């Protein structure tokens, strides 16, 4: 048993970008006959990324838009397969690439809590047991029997977040989930982060907020053009990240 919660070893990912979207049999068949002209190019999103996350780390991933952060997160979360390289986990991974994935607008808030709970692996009974707490935390008592399509976007995020923080995971992966919400929501997020840190949970956080990085992360990497440009302490990483923007 290693001490690492996540080991990312030399991960590369490339996407094939056709010039014309090749979504029909006809184009596929005609292409068999003219193999030379594939009419597209490959885009290398990640060019050999390696790093380790220790158990109990609050690990930040920083980088500009388009630097490959989200691709990396999706590979760690096993949503994408790496083109080459390996990712190893120890423990149960739960990732939030986005809040409220799988929400059905035609269903009520209550029904969506059960559906979202199931996506996190909670049985009906388990959701029932924590239902009141979820609703209270989201401050949506009066709206639970309303259809989700009548919710404001802030209400939806609050509901999703209240369910999400119930997730039982050894490794949590969070992708900019906190970029939304008002001051009171932000406060709740901060409290959640503090509990995670206090409970020594392993967390991988992608964010553009350097104050969050400085406050919660103990380690961080900076990704630029699909490579790890810096690896080290959170404060230094935040400096390094800000330097990326000074160059221009």
């Amino acid at each position, binding site marked *: 048993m290693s001490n690492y919660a996540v080991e990312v070893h030399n991960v590369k990912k490339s*996407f094939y970008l056709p010039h014309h979207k090749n*979504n*029909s*049999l*006809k184009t*596929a068949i005609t292409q068999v006959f003219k193999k030379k002209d594939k009419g597209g190019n490959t885009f290398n999103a990640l060019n050999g990324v390696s790093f380790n996350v220790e158990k109990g780390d609050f690990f930040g991933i920083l980088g500009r838009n388009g630097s490959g952060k989200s691709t990396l997160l*999706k590979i760690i*979360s*096993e*949503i*994408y*397969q790496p083109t080459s390289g390996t990712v190893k986990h120890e423990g149960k*991974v739960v*990732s939030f*690439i*986005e809040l409220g*994935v*799988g929400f*059905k607008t*035609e*269903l009520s808030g209550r*029904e969506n809590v*059960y*559906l979202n*709970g*199931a*996506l996190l*692996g*909670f*049985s*009906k009974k388990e959701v029932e047991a924590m239902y009141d707490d979820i609703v209270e935390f989201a401050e949506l008592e009066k709206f639970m029997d309303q259809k989700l399509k009548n919710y404001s976007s802030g209400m939806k995020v609050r509901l999703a977040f209240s369910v999400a923080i119930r997730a039982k995971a050894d490794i949590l992966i969070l992708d900019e989930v906190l970029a939304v919400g008002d001051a009171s929501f932000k406060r709740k997020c901060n409290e959640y982060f503090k509990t995670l840190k206090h409970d020594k949970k392993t967390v991988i956080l992608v964010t553009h907020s350097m104050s969050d990085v400085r406050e919660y992360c103990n380690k961080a990497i900076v990704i630029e053009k699909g490579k790890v440009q810096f690896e080290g302490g959170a404060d230094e990483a935040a400096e390094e990240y800000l330097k990326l923007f000074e160059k221009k």
Partner: protein
Amino acid sequence: MFEKLYKKYRYSLILLRELVITDFKLRYQGSVLGYLWALLRPMFLFAIMYIFFVEVLHIGKEIPHWGVALLLGIVMWNFFTEVVGQGLKSIVNSGGIIRKINFPKYIIVISTSLSAFINLAINLGVVAIFGAIDGVEPSWGMLLIPVFVVELYIFGLGMAFFLSAVNVKFRDVGYIWEVVSQALFYGSAIMFPLDRVVSMSHDIAVFLAMNPVAQAIQDARYFGITNNLATAHTLTSNIWALLAPFVITLVMFVVGALYFRKRSPYFAEDI
């Protein structure tokens, strides 16, 4: 051992349950009569077909209880096309969630197929009502109907696995299936007794009865409703011809499931 199995599939089971419930709820969302439509719809449709085909066109009039046999065939056919047709779209339709969460993708295909089972159960209930009115004698053979339903299900699920995975890359699949399913519909002798084909060509009838859809439906009619109908084993005693539908079913399922398993890790980026 059971506990181990349960632990392994616990997440899948929880998710499956919730997806089936959601699907059923959403289907009748916004209608005044709601779930009642699940029952009313087939009742009205059957009444129309029954009157038109039996009373007006006199197809299969020489066969006792042909009207009920017709309904049973249509119900089983609808079940099969729902499993395949909804299944093949299911993965692409769930693109949003597949791109954001890692979970076993086969759950999606199975959950749509289970929704088809709910419809089938309701429809079979309606057929039973028509059967009682028409005076079909209860028999032990009726117990074989679920067996043929399961056969049809396994065949349909295999196709759904295969086609849903292909559909991710080639959206033509939906159109091809529409055409193929029409051919299969007429080739399975659902709206007319298989005896009509026999009177044209015995060999063609045997050939048709080798496809799992035709065999399952004709056998369900033969054993469940009336043995005044032609079905695979009344047409031929060739063991290979009789085994063919079961072999095709099994091969389809294994090939479909394996192909799906091979492709599913790439669904998120290909959709």
